[in-house]
């Protein structure tokens, strides 16, 4: 079994769909972003690394995550108070424990790496302790790799006039020849390079476009079925939702989400979630659930839910809205490229 040539550095960052880790190679750092079905790699060669910065970040303020947790706890507490059922206490304790765990492991620093050609964030180094440990491991390797650059410095200083003959005029002060020409902002061309042709290949968006098209069709059909006398068989919509969800999953598998902007990711997620949610609560499945429900109260609730035309219309509008939003943000990105 082949062994990996990489050593994993401390720290990792989990997100909903991705995990970031940092690995130490022979002559480079490897930043790995793992989706569930793919991995993408970014290499930072020790010779090219110019600077690393670890920016401490306070964890005292309340973020959107904290406010969401507070709202959820309030909701669950209210439900527990009114229903007096122990199941809500268990849910409340589980939610509280999860929140406490996530809060304790939240990122408390931001790490950056700068090379001659790029400045990138190192998401895996999001905790100060991990960042310190990783820096201790890589600092010496970078310095070793750049040892020849250090030795270049005397060469620059040695660009002096040849030694004067003894009979010549008195030697100039040592500081005089060392005076370098006025500093030229040589980094400027490197730091802000103009966009080069072919540097960033446009990414395909076919799976996203198909997903949005299917979401649009599903929303349109749903709206037509609730607003007009359009004959719609009960089994027709779930396959469309499923196909839309599969298209979204295909975009995810084929890494079409890799270089998306935040707005595009939100639009894709909204389309995927709304399709899935509406599919789960579609008329067909609700009728199945009603038939299988043994509790009469549950049956009554499901029945009301399934027969609610307003809700059905809202679902159709939401689907159409998500699809149009998706088309709009992806079209905008295409124009930019």
């Amino acid at each position, binding site marked *: 079994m082949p062994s990996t040539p990489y050593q994993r550095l401390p720290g990792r960052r989990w997100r909903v769909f991705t995990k970031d880790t940092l690995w130490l190679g022979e002559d480079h750092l490897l930043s790995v972003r793992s989706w569930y079905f793919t991995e993408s790699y970014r*290499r930072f060669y020790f010779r090219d690394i110019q600077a690393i*910065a670890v920016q401490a970040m306070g964890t005292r303020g309340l973020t959107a995550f904290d406010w969401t947790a507070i709202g959820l706890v309030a909701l669950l507490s209210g439900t527990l108070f009114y229903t007096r059922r122990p199941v809500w206490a268990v849910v409340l304790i589980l939610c509280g424990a999860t929140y406490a765990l996530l809060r304790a492991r939240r990122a408390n620093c931001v790490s950056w790496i700068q090379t*001659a050609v790029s400045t990138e964030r190192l998401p895996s180094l999001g905790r100060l302790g991990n960042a310190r440990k990783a820096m201790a491991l890589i*600092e010496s390797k970078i310095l070793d790799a750049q040892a020849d650059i250090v030795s270049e410095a005397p060469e620059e200083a040695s660009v002096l006039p040849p030694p004067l003959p003894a009979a010549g005029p008195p030697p100039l002060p040592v500081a005089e020849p060392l005076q370098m020409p006025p500093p030229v902002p040589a980094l400027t061309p490197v730091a802000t390079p103009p966009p080069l042709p072919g540097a960033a290949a446009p990414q395909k968006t076919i799976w996203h476009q198909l997903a949005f098209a299917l979401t649009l069709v599903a929303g349109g059909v749903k709206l037509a079925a609730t607003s007009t006398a359009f004959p719609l068989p009960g089994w027709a919509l779930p396959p469309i939702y499923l196909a839309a969800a599969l298209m979204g999953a295909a975009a995810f598998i084929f890494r079409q989400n890799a270089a998306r902007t935040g707005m595009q990711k939100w639009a894709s997620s909204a389309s995927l979630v709304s399709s899935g949610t509406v599919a789960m609560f579609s008329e067909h499945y609700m009728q199945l659930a009603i038939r299988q429900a043994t509790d009469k109260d549950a049956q009554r609730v499901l029945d009301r839910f399934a027969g609610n035309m307003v809700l059905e219309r809202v679902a159709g509008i939401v689907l159409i809205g998500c699809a149009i939003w998706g088309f709009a943000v992806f079209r905008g990105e295409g124009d930019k490229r």
Partner: protein
Amino acid sequence: MAGVNEALRRCAECGNTVEVPEANAAVPCYDCGGEIRFLLFPALTRARRPAAAAMPAVGEAACYFHEQSVAAAACERCGRFLCGLCRIEWGSPVLCPACVGTAEKTTDLLTSTRTRYDNISLGLFALSIPMFVLSFLISPAAVAIGIVALRKPGSLVRRRKWRAWLGIALGLLGSLGWVWLIAYAVLKGKS
């Protein structure tokens, strides 16, 4: 010290920009008291080295290997800017001589993405649980993709194949379950 990108100098807490020290040190933010720890390396001073008169004009990128030449492309693996002399077309991507040199040793060094077939195999098996009715199709697919995972190169950093083997084993289990179910139904029907 000049040459450090603003993203590194900006306080993550308040957004204020701090001064970069001359040597490795932690710098406090004057506004919020937050701290930024800088590690500076010799490559930074190389980038700031005064250039010759033939340097490309401000606003133009220079070749990484020839500072006097204007960049014409960027290496698609390491991102270095290249002049017309240094750009090497390696199939469809444009690479720099250094990347082509390292690629000769092992092709792994040119890899920027890998598909995790082993995880796809496991994911398919997981999908067959909620979609039990379709598992007669999904389970053999999990086996097939597990075999593909064994044959194709997997993750660069995790080289063990146990996920692929697990996907194959679970897929086989699901397939055998269906075979048993069908055989049972047929035999029951006959009797």
